[in-house]
């Protein structure tokens, strides 16, 4: 294990016990050695990945994942304010909750992306036609869609059909319980990727950003 790996594990441990002061101290020390975005990539991103791994393994709970991502978002906002040119502002990224009221997954992913240096547009809760319209209007290149109910997950097919009809090649990343319980469902609804946790969603966004840059 490298010193960087060890640091991010310690950072993850502090987040999981809600030691905001300890986590802030570590980020301040990392910032003293690196540029803000580099410090975030070295400490925060791998810590959120570690927390996602622990959740998958059953050694961290969703409530801890949520509180951790919220702390990270606040700390990173101090380092990289939303308007900071050092944030990853392009390509344009959107996030939405499709047709139900259970927003926790979206909130966690949104916080994890912002804590990883991305800036994104949070559309809140929308229907499939409303979301497709916003994506086209705002020229969003990557959209993350969170669902809890199976029927909402199946609505993503409609988003895809509407985007294709409008000539949009926006990449769709999906997440939420239906996709955890049916690993084939993301392909069926026409998504480009699926994230079982916030860290996977961040990795999926990074892959899409790379593909779009080619």
């Amino acid at each position, binding site marked *: 294990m490298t010193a960087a790996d060890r640091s991010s594990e310690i950072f993850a441990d502090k987040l999981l016990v*809600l030691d905001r002061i300890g986590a802030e101290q570590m980020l301040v020390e990392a910032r003293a050695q690196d540029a803000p975005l580099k410090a975030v990539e070295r400490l925060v991103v791998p810590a959120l990945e570690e927390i996602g791994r622990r*959740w998958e393994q*059953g050694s*961290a*709970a*969703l*409530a*801890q994942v*949520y*509180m951790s991502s919220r702390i990270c978002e606040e700390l990173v906002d101090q380092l990289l304010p939303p308007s900071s040119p050092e944030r990853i502002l392009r390509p344009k990224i959107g996030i939405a909750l499709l047709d*139900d*009221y*259970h*927003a*926790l997954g979206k*909130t966690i992913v949104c916080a994890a992306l912002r804590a990883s240096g991305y800036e994104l547009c949070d559309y809140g809760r929308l229907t499939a036609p409303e979301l497709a319209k916003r994506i086209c209007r705002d020229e969003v290149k990557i959209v993350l869609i969170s669902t809890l*109910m*199976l*029927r*909402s997950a*199946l609505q993503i097919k409609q988003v895809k059909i509407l985007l294709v009809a409008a000539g949009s090649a926006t990449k769709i990343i999906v997440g939420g*319980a*239906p996709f*955890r*319980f*049916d690993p*084939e*469902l993301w392909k*069926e609804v026409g998504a480009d990727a699926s994230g079982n946790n916030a860290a996977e969603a961040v990795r999926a966004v990074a892959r899409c950003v790379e593909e779009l840059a080619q």
Partner: protein
Amino acid sequence: MSNAEMTSMERVLTTLSHREPDRVPFFLLLTMHGAKELGLSIREYFSQAKYVIEGQCRLRAKYHHDCFYPLLYGAAEAEAFGGEIVWYEDGPPNSGAPVLKKPEDILALQVPVVDKTPCLRRMLDVISGLKERAGDTVPIIGVVISPFSLPVMQMGFAAYIELLYEQPELFARLMAVNQAFCVAWANAQFRAGATTVCYFDPLASPDMISPEIYRRTGLETARHCLSCFNGPACIHLGSGRCLAMVEELAKVGAVAAGVSALDDLAAVKAACKGKITVAGNLNGIEMRRWTPTQAEAKVKEAIAAAAAGGGFILTDNHGEIPWQISDETLLAISEAVQQWGRYS
């Protein structure tokens, strides 16, 4: 005894006593499918108890499963507290915007009166109607949402997590209100004829809340509520994994526990053997794409993992089979249980 055809009630009671009945009991936890049987929209179907009673009877005649499931929709409890219900043509009614807009609203929260709340009275009418038809031959599974998990619908999950960590006094007040409601609601279902009440507590899963926090909050709530119920309770963690918590849940007095499709069913059975019956764990989401052959294989797999010695009920992992599951798949599950679930 094991060679004779048992009634559903005998079959279930035998397995709950950790002995082998004539065959593996199975619960198809169908709520909305009765609307298809009656040619009604989901909203129309849930509007009158007589429709749900007829729907449940038709479903059981078709699939030969071992229970009646009078649940209308889980969000009814949020509705009882004044919450909004959002209706869909192809899915369960969902809770809308939270009724508690800010934590301080908890101070004014009142315990709903069961007999004066239409959506709850309707479910009680369903239970009593099913009891009239089935007598003591078919278990009737009542449902309550745990006081610890209900706030996800009452105030939203994120706000509730923050309350749990940061505002212990308001959390305690919310639990007191919800516990009083939960006990009254469960006991009203027992009075109406429910054989058992399933205590849905998704937040009991270590996937959702860390076990150390759950032990000093939700587990104590479960212990209190179950001790006040006038009948036996099952406990269900929605689709959350239960293995790490199941032995402690057995100690609060539940007779059966729901198991997630993400759990290792054989490992859960081993942990529960002789203590608490395991119920699970067919994957209700993936089920949508199963062919009849796949359905048969999944049933055989679950039976092989957990049926030996009794203490097992085959069912889905979530506590409600999605609207999108076809009759063909449900029939294939039923036929597979009849064929492969015999104990002798």
